[in-house]
């Protein structure tokens, strides 16, 4: 991770292009930076797709379609931010898909049944969701159950709780939240994507420029080494589970505001974590732990949204999207392996 960050920020005197063959040096520098920066290849794909779809359907870059793209990218990219943190720390969270559906109900119960004011009600829902993350993390770290199994269990447990408490019926968005709050927290055209960009930027900084991020990388890269260095491994892991759940809850609440109903099937259960993991992986985050990128995950999600939306517009069979997604995941993982070998040996 550090590598991808440092490369661009370090003023490297030895890499100053010589004036004589300047343009060639710049070109090789660019290709070098491209090889090193994991986000570069996915950015290329994102731009390429945009150009392709714009040429085949001229309304692709229309305002209404851009709004569409923003709405399908935003919420899941927010979930993907948490997923990247966990993948870097060497863990995973499948239950976040159900937190996504559960959090709007928590807000609804708090506001409509316990007369909590709107904003505190939303914060309460986020807090309880973070508590769910704490339980996940506690089971993983203290009881030593692999996170895949732990969160598989909590996924179904939460699904049960959502269905039981909602009686499997959708609820209405709390009256008190209608208006500005609903607009700013999801229903506005650009609300979700704006929050998403802020959150991605924030956690990009957290991962690459703060102690928390450094320790998350250390824990995922060399667990024993991190422990021996005195890093509080449990705190880092549990904290990242809590962040992931809270982010999933926030994304779910925004999505409920946008679709204007609180649905027990919001987000389609497994679809949320699966898509978020796909976005992270396509963006260049390895499942092995120790490395990952927030911006890559955002771009990965954007590419998935572009594909779905573009295929819809040009009338391609929508079922084909899964085939494309699958191939994209495999291709990006194979490319990742190849590129990281290239980075390790001499070139970089």
């Amino acid at each position, binding site marked *: *991770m*550090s*590598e991808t960050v*440092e490369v661009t920020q*370090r003023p490297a005197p030895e890499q100053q292009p010589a004036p004589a063959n300047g343009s060639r040096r710049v070109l090789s520098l660019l290709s070098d930076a491209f090889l090193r920066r994991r986000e570069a290849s996915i950015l290329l794909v994102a731009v390429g797709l945009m150009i392709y779809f714009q040429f085949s359907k001229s309304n692709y870059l229309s305002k209404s379609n851009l709004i569409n793209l923003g709405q399908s990218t935003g919420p899941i990219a927010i979930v993907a931010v948490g997923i990247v943190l966990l993948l870097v720390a060497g863990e995973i969270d499948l239950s976040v898909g159900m937190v996504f559906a559960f959090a709007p109900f928590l807000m609804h119960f708090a506001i409509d049944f316990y007369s909590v004011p709107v904003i505190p009600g939303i914060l309460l829902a986020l807090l309880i969701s973070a508590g769910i993350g704490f339980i996940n993390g506690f089971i993983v770290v203290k009881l030593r159950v692999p996170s895949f199994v732990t969160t598989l269990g909590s996924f179904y447990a939460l699904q049960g709780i959502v269905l039981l408490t909602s009686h499997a019926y959708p609820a209405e968005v709390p009256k008190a939240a209608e208006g500005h709050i609903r607009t700013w927290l999801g229903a506005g055209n650009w609300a979700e994507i704006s929050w998403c960009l802020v959150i991605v930027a924030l956690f990009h*900084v957290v991962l690459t*420029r*703060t*102690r928390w991020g*450094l*320790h998350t*990388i*250390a824990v*995922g*890269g*060399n667990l*024993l*080494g*991190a*422990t*021996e*260095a*005195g*890093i509080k491994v449990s705190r880092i892991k549990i904290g990242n589970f809590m962040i992931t759940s809270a982010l999933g809850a926030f994304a779910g609440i925004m999505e409920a505001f946008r679709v204007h109903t609180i649905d027990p099937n919001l987000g389609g259960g497994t679809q949320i974590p699966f898509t978020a993991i796909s976005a992270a992986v396509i963006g260049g985050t390895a499942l092995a732990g*120790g*490395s990952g990128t927030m911006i890559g995950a955002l771009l990965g999600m954007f590419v998935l949204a572009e594909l779905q939306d573009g295929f819809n517009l040009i009338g391609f069979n929508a079922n084909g999207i899964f085939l494309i997604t699958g191939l994209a995941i495999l291709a990006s993982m194979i490319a990742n392996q190849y590129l990281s070998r290239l980075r*390790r040996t001499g070139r970089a």
Partner: protein
Amino acid sequence: MSEALAGAADAPQESPAPAASTSDALRVEHVAKSFGGVTALRDVNLRLGRGEVLGLIGDNGAGKSTLIKTICGFHQPDAGRIFVVGEEVALRSVDHARSVGIDCVYQDLALVNELSVFHNMFLNREKVRWPLLNNRAMRKLARQHLASMGLNIPDVNAEVAKLSGGQRQAIAVARSVYSDARILLLDEPLAAMGAKEGTQILDLIRDLKAGGKVSVIIIAHNYAQALDVCDRVNVLQHGQITFDKRRADTSVEELTELMVAEYRASRAARPPAV
């Protein structure tokens, strides 16, 4: 380290004679440690003088790693006492041990491959300009410190994964020295290292000794090379120190004989294989 090197010229330290116990950098008395039914340390008594380099050797399974991890706070002993400069300490954690000046460079190198050299050097002791890491300061200090130790690491921004075994070991040692460790435990510092790299590490230890501020325990499997820098040698066998001599009074041959004798004895105790 720079001042340590400066001090080396006028105060060369001879191998220190065993002196009054309060002047010992570290004293371990009757330490025992078991894991479940397995006794790793039976009754360990060990003394490390100030500025001394002690070689600790022993066969696989003798309890070397357990002893190291107990001294540096990773394991808590079941029984026994540990004194640092004459004062008894009950080490609660690695952090606690570090706060009293004990630091360990582990065999399984506590470096994170995915992080840069300078991030590794400051791992868990990062310079922070809240809320962000102060990378510039860490980079600068890392460069200065590595240079002052005479270590040639071309690029502190490089990922540790790209470095050689010797460079990684050197960085791990440099990290401990930088943290003002007074008692440095080196677990297999020469493992996985070529002859040239090994010599570099031993030179590094000599420099530390010359500085006189750091006392060192070297745990070595392949002791022939490591013995060069030691003032004294202890042998750990079956969770006990069974041998304690000054380096000048022993030899590689004697130590080898000691290790092999153990094997012969265990072989003799077994009924002969047909």
